[in-house]
């Protein structure tokens, strides 16, 4: 219980944030929280199973597009970009997205489907390590090119914009945005508990075993492929869910959110937070994105340098990320306390 103090404090702070944050800041925080869910997804895959995916923004983006399509169809029977391209009727695969009960599950199912499509052939032939990572990068590139090329169906580089209402509630209403924010936080907490349950179970131990020594695990009679597929799919679904929560808060989804750059950024959040640590992933996502907003607002013309410097420093000085720093401090405190107790005893 004591160990969880930190994360409980963070969750409580996130839950009461609407009371003391302005509309604009709360909106930003909501975005960071949805990124936190995506970071959990990466941590599960990279931190615990040792599989680095640099294409996770694809899953995030797919989830976002599903939700974006739903919200778009709430106010426009034929999306504006289709009209510009000379379409007169909604294509058949767009039609079911007008229903929330279809769009939201699809935001999770579609990424899972794609992850299995990639995962089954690659894991079966034993592609792993850096080769798998390169493959996921290619995936990101393919999806971006595809989504830009299919302007007629996806909105091209513009993406889907001008999102107005969800389930009949207007997205320009401050109250509605607060509720969406709170829902996002609650889903973050549920995702966290779910991931924690996974990594603490036997399955989680197997995942860590895959990370640390896959061959030994094979000799013990396990088939790592099933586990890897499972965790890849869960991770993809979680990223999709994060994307679906991101869209109503930011009000736009475009291919620039599913490319290589955002994919790498996602891995960076986890690296900064401390991988192999679920709390770290959430903290990393929030801290890095806060820093991004802060630097770009304060130094709009040279903020990228500060941002880059921050990454270099964290990786060089604190390879275990923010959680590494916190754990170090806690350990030192413990030693000091212990020494005091010993001294106190000695005094008696």
């Amino acid at each position: 219980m004591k160990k969880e103090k930190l994360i409980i404090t963070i969750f409580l702070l996130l839950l009461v944030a609407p009371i003391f944050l302005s509309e604009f800041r709360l909106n930003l925080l909501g975005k960071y929280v949805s990124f936190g869910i995506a970071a959990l997804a990466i941590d599960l895959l990279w931190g615990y199973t040792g599989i680095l995916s640099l294409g996770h923004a694809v899953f995030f983006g797919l989830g976002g597009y599903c939700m974006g399509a739903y919200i778009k169809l709430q106010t426009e029977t034929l999306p504006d970009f289709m009209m510009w391209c000379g379409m007169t009727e909604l294509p058949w695969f767009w039609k079911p997205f007008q229903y929330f009960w279809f769009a939201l599950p699809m935001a999770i199912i579609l990424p899972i489907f794609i992850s299995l499509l990639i995962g089954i052939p690659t894991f079966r032939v034993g592609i792993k390590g850096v080769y798998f990572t390169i493959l996921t990068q290619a995936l990101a590139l393919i999806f971006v090119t595809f989504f830009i090329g299919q302007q007629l169906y996806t909105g091209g580089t513009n993406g889907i914009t001008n999102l107005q209402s969800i389930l009949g509630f207007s997205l320009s209403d401050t109250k509605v945005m607060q509720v969406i924010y709170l829902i996002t936080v609650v889903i973050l907490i549920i995702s966290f508990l779910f991931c924690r349950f996974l990594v603490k179970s036997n399955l989680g131990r197997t995942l860590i075993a895959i990370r640390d020594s896959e061959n030994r695990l094979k000799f013990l009679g396990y088939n790592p492929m099933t586990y890897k597929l499972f965790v890849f799919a869960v991770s993809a679904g979680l990223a999709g869910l994060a994307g679906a929560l991101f869209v109503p808060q930011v009000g736009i989804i475009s291919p620039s959110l599913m490319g290589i750059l955002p994919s790498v950024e996602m891995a960076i959040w986890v690296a900064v937070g401390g991988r192999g640590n679920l709390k770290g992933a959430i903290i990393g996502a929030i801290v890095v994105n806060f820093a991004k907003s802060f630097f770009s607002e304060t130094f709009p013309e040279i903020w990228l340098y500060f941002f880059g410097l921050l990454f270099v420093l964290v990786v060089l000085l604190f390879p275990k990320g923010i959680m590494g720093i916190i754990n170090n401090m806690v350990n030192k405190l413990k030693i000091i306390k212990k020494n005091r107790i010993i001294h106190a005893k000695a005094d008696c």
Partner: protein
Amino acid sequence: MKKKILSLMFLVVFAVSFVSIQSGFAKDKEPIKVGILHSLSGTMSISEVSVKDGELLAIEEINANGGVLGRKIVPVIEDGASDWPTFAEKAKKLILKDKVDVVFGCWTSASRKAVLPVFEKYDHLLFYPVQYEGLEASKNIIYTGATANQQIMPGVEWLLKNGYKKMYLLGSDYVFPRTANLIVKAQLKAEGGILVGEEYTPLGHTEYSTIINKIKAAKPDVVFSSLNGDSNVAFFKQLRAAGITAEQIPTMSVSIAEDEIRGIGAENLIGHFAVWNYFMSMDTPNNKPFVKRYKKRFGQDRVTDDPIEANYFGVYLWAKAVEQAGTTELDAVRESLKGLTFDAPEGLVMIDPTNNHTWKVVQVGKVNAEGQFDILYTSDKWVKPDPYPPLVSNKVVIEPGKVVEIKK
């Protein structure tokens, strides 16, 4: 005794300052905050940084002349980072946190489409400086760039009149070129041109040998190009390497201005055409001093071009509207912007009272060895902006933000 006098003086000072705050005196002298939102990093920064500089120059000049309503203009600069969701976030920040009175910004249609809902949601005002595809007329945007009928259509008309009948359409694959070519095709049909090919490449595409072969085979009189960004460098270099000169097959570009020529290299572009509303080489009374000031402020190697000029005068138009309204209050400013004129470097311009676009003159130029344009044609008269050209649309704007369908 001294103490008493001193405390009395304090009291007076206190009272005066209190009254002046109450009467709003202090507030009137507060600077006016305006937002500037462009990509200062990422792929679009080569174009957008120059536009930002143009806006800053206008602000500095206005401040040097006493500001607006006796108040100084203070720019709040944000980086859209060539990323559309970031544009939306920063627009929100400028409106909600900085509480700016107006925003000047954007370049790509994608970034404008991303911030449009934000400006409409908070009922705010954006000055957008770039020519674009049209089919939009928000009451929250003042469009200081050209609409299709102020750039693309007169460009095609000029080509047809000068004997360039067979046209090959080449564009980047996104909404502006697609819509532009939709209009061009309709125009060719109506005015007796011949379409011999149409091709789109993704933004950032650099391999044009196949397309150049297709162009060679199709033997067009002219290539009408709406390529954007880096692709232009590759296309024009490869075109020249393939031995096609502007005398054989010229191109007419709608996205290459003086700033882009610097990047592509004038030697690759000599003899090719472009159509704009402003050229740096224009001989108007206001242009020469403007170019001189811009160069003096940002460097002798810098050039001015259409979008830079468009939001340079955009800032002046807004300042004039505020002066006239006597307040920065949005509805009043919007009202006084209607039909407002300004003597810009390109000549007199006017904001259309119904559709928020700008009345301006159209010109065709030919690239010379110095990377400047020799002006071949000018419409002399204002061309009325029409964001919904009847060739491709059955809609009309009846007042800012209100578009209705007309039955034929």
